[in-house]
């Protein structure tokens, strides 16, 4: 029964994909939307069952299907694991997934390829479930690359535009750079532990003393796995694909590039916490990269004018904070922020989609403004989420971000300072976004102004639900009495000291809140009181220009990696290929000319050339061998 239900959980979205891809076009848009959404809803219900099951028994459920890849020293099974971590992840993947599918029914209704959109979206959820539910690293890897494929398909959904196709390609390729790292990490773990099963690796780690070589290898493995995470979760140095990924339809940005797929790296590190605990050096690297990404991305977000780009950099920055927590060994804190972030960021993206929808595709905030009155639901839901992401009491983000900063404070003051500055920047750019979009006067065209409208219920209902979650989501882990920590406890082997609600804690909360208010205040002064509008692209100068151009990282990659690679390719093709060819053929030519001299046959007959060549070569060889 449980096995079957687990299969339903995994396969329902897959059948949704098949049905939509094969019959979607004929069956019509109503069918496509309904089926696409229902298939995720079924998974959500199945997940709920498992969630309650695990809540009550606490026992993980393993579902073995069939043997997959056989190696001499071990075998990799196609099997799934439902435990506290995977069920928690599934809960918000399928839950938010359902809401976003519902939203898409309305959002994508006018697209001629709506059936494909739902098919890809269903396929994505299927792979995401596989990623989360796999009971070993290689099944996870199926999902890992599978979601990357769907991300590629959906970023390039409007494939007539080659720029979008480039963005899709970039996402796939940068992810593959990380995937190579991940794969090497997997090899090392397989070599050291003779298994890729999470349980077996954990058992091995705790049951025996590791030799010095093994410990060193495990550190390298942890580093390699983290490289994989930087690809999927858009961390330095592999983060530049995520902002470009905004080329995809907005529901895709909300589901894949904010709430679910990009959290895969955090999932993987949390899943393998016992491996990372053995590599303190790598943990330090993770914390530093996380903090660095948080502040760099937030800085870039300060000056972006495309509403989705702001949110994209914000996502990168928030993921950075999660890695900061992971690096400090506070896995449950990172997971907490993953969840609250999924709520408010999905809501923000969907809200921005609602705005873009109302403005017929306009994404530049310089051409927005004053939408508060026409789109009250969109405004208020986004406002709640903005307060949440800015870390204002008592919204969800306040609790989770506060825990990250508190952990950082106890770990390393510099990391705490960096994280806090990133948070202040977050409050600033988010309120900048809100003021530019919803306040003051409308700056778009007359035509747009006439057609301004609040979005239909299919769009606003998901917004409202997500906004509610963004408001109260913090309840799952209140300091001092955290349901989440208690729930996740069986997963973690190294007890993480819970910070008590003491004077320091209140002081840190106070500082964070003041910081957020400072950020908001600056945005208020600049964009609401002075009613400033960011200048046109050409007028941007100085540091702002560097930030606006994202520190020229893309250009640097282009110059340092892409161009040399293509030059090398050109060089190989033009020179090496001919040189090698000449060299090898030279051998034939020598024998040829000997034959020609003897008989002076210059008629170009293949037979003669061949004969001479063969004769020459074989006589040399026979001589060599026999004498």
């Amino acid at each position: 029964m449980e096995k079957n239900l687990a299969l339903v959980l995994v396969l329902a979205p897959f059948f949704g994909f098949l049905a939509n891809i094969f019959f979607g076009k004929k069956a019509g848009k109503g069918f496509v939307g309904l089926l696409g959404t229902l298939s995720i809803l079924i998974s959500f219900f199945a997940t709920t069952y498992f969630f309650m099951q695990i809540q009550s028994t606490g026992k993980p459920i393993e579902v073995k299907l069939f043997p997959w890849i056989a190696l001499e020293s071990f075998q990799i099974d196609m099997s799934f694991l439902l435990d506290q971590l995977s069920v928690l992840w599934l809960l918000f993947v399928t839950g938010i997934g359902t809401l976003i599918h519902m939203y898409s029914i309305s959002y994508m209704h006018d697209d001629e390829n709506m059936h494909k959109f739902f098919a890809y979206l269903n396929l994505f959820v299927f792979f995401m479930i596989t990623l989360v539910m796999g009971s070993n690293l290689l099944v996870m890897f199926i999902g890992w690359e599978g979601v990357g494929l769907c991300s590629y398909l959906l970023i390039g959904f409007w494939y007539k535009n080659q720029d979008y196709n480039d963005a899709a390609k970039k996402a796939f390729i940068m992810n593959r750079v990380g995937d190579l790292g991940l794969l090497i990490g997997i090899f090392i773990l397989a070599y050291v532990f003779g298994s890729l099963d999470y349980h077996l690796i954990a058992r091995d780690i705790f049951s025996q003393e590791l030799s010095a070589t093994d410990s060193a290898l495990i550190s390298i493995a942890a580093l390699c796995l983290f490289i994989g995470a930087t690809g999927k979760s858009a961390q330095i140095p592999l983060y530049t694909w995520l902002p470009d990924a905004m080329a995809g339809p907005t529901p895709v940005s909300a589901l894949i590039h904010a709430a679910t797929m990009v959290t895969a790296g955090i999932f993987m590190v949390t899943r393998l916490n016992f491996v990372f605990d053995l590599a303190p050096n790598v943990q330090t690297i993770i914390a530093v990269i996380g903090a660095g990404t948080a502040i760099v991305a937030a800085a870039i977000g300060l000056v972006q004018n495309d509403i989705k780009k702001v949110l994209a950099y914000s996502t990168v920055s928030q993921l950075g904070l999660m890695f900061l927590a992971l690096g400090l060994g506070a896995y449950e804190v990172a997971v907490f922020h993953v969840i609250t972030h999924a709520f408010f960021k999905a809501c923000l993206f969907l809200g921005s989609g609602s705005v873009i929808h109302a403005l017929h595709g306009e994404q530049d905030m310089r051409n927005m403004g004053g939408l508060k009155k026409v789109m009250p639901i969109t405004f208020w839901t986004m406002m709640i989420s903005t307060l949440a992401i800015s870390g204002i009491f008592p919204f969800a983000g306040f609790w989770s971000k506060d825990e990250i900063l508190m952990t950082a404070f106890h770990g390393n003051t510099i990391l705490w300072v960096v994280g806090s500055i990133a948070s202040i920047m977050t409050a600033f750019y988010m309120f900048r976004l809100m003021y530019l979009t919803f306040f003051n006067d409308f700056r778009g065209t007359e035509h747009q102004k006439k057609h301004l409208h609040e979005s239909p219920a299919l769009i606003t209902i998901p917004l409202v639900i997500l906004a509610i979650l963004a408001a109260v989501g913090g309840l799952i882990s209140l300091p001092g009495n955290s349901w989440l920590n208690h729930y996740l406890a069986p997963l973690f082997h190294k007890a993480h000291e819970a910070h008590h609600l003491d004077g320091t804690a209140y002081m840190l909360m106070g500082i964070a809140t003041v910081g957020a208010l400072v950020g908001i205040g600056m945005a208020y002064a600049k964009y609401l009181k002075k009613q400033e509008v960011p200048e046109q692209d050409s007028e941007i100068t100085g540091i702002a220009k560097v930030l606006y151009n994202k520190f020229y990282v893309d250009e640097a990659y282009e110059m340092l990696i892409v161009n040399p690679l293509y030059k090398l390719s050109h060089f190989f093709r033009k020179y090496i290929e001919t040189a090698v060819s000449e060299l090898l053929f030279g051998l034939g030519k020598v024998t040829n000319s000997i034959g020609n001299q003897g008989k002076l046959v210059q008629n170009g007959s293949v037979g003669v050339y061949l004969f001479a060549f063969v004769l020459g070569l074989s006589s040399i060889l026979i001589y060599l061998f026999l004498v």
Partner: protein
Amino acid sequence: MNVSFILILLLFGAIATYFAGDKLAKTVALVFSLASAVFSVYILNLHQAGINPSFISQWITNPNVFIALQVDGLSLAMLLLTTFLTTIIIFSSFGNQYNNSKTFYALVLFMSFAMIGTFLSADAFLYYIFWELALIPIYFIALVWGNGDVEERKRAIIKFFIFTLAGSLFMLVAFIYLFQKAGSLMLSDLYAVRLTSQEQFWIFLAFFLAYAIKIPIFPFHTWQANTYQKAPAVGTMLLSGIMLKMGLYSVIRWQLPIAPIAAKTYMNIFIALSVVGVVYGSIVALKQRNLKKLLAYSSLAHVGLIAAGAYSLSVDGLRGAVLQMIAHGFVVVGLFFAAEVIERRFQTQEIAEMGGIRIQDSKFASLFMIVMLASVALPSTFNFVGEFTLLYSLYNVNIWFAIIAGTTIILGAVYMLNMFKNVMLGDKDSRVFAVVTTQEIIVFVVIIAVLLFFGMYPKPISDLVTPPLQEIVGRINRL
């Protein structure tokens, strides 16, 4: 009934096809290739039931030469690959019209005959004959029915011919030497010969030249791209799908077990050379403007990895090599078929002249994309199983081999997605692309079904080939 029947069947099929005349030729050829595929499944059943369908009969008494056709899991896998792919390849050509098609299809069947002979032979003399015999039909197929400028084509094909022939001569010399030592050319006798490490070195090298050219391994690949480009689609598919596997198979069957000490001593050099080919092929593919040439270089990268796995001398490496040989066989036929589908409509192989196809035919775009994704070894495709096993076996030799060869994961995605973008996407619809025909769809669907099924469940093939590979590795390690 034993396995020799399949050779008779194909030889008879080739003759029958020739006499069936131009109109019926392709149907007759398809029937015979299908029959050979069915028969190879029957042989598989015999094998699984524990009955040995091998065939041995003395051919020449002095010197002692046997017609020895050996069936074990390894040769069976190659037999199945050849018969099934030949069937698919013949069926895929139904959309083409060839002049003198009776000769064309007779040559295709004859080639299948010779390649199967190579895979089954357990006597070096017979093996060598089949090995060289396989070259003749493909030479004519490429030369007569190829495309592009006649003079250029001639040059490319003759280069290919001379290259492979020259390589084989080294192998012939090695066999002559071995015959002197062993007094027989039976595989089992050659396995038993005791050779000094110096002798082994020369023999290993002689084999290597023959196989490195056939596979091809860098830097012996220079014939490949031009030949693939000039040959007709059927020829390219036969070459890349099956014929190059003759080289890889021979490494496992002949080269490694006959000269195990040399194999062990120089293992790292040969792995390194193969790995260089992986990276080199991938990098050259980045800048290709001709679709078939791009696929040729991508194939160079893929077979380089297979060769590296084989030279790793571990069961994992050899198993990965065999799995990937099969996976690569199907995927490369699928890719070249996609190129052919486009060429049928656009009469070009130049990527710059393509684009905007998906907008006109999304079905073809989906099919092509799935094959392409298999080629870049997306997990859940057969190619991932092979690539993962191969890279893991390289990791066990040296982590750097795995990392360097692993760059193919990245570079493969770069050139393939670039290609796909330029060939299929965008909205350039200046040229009309007629939607794929049912016949074309069937070809893709069959290939995709194989790639996905064994991607999820490679166990049957893995179980089939593992025992003989364990034996070979055992033999290498015993010495």
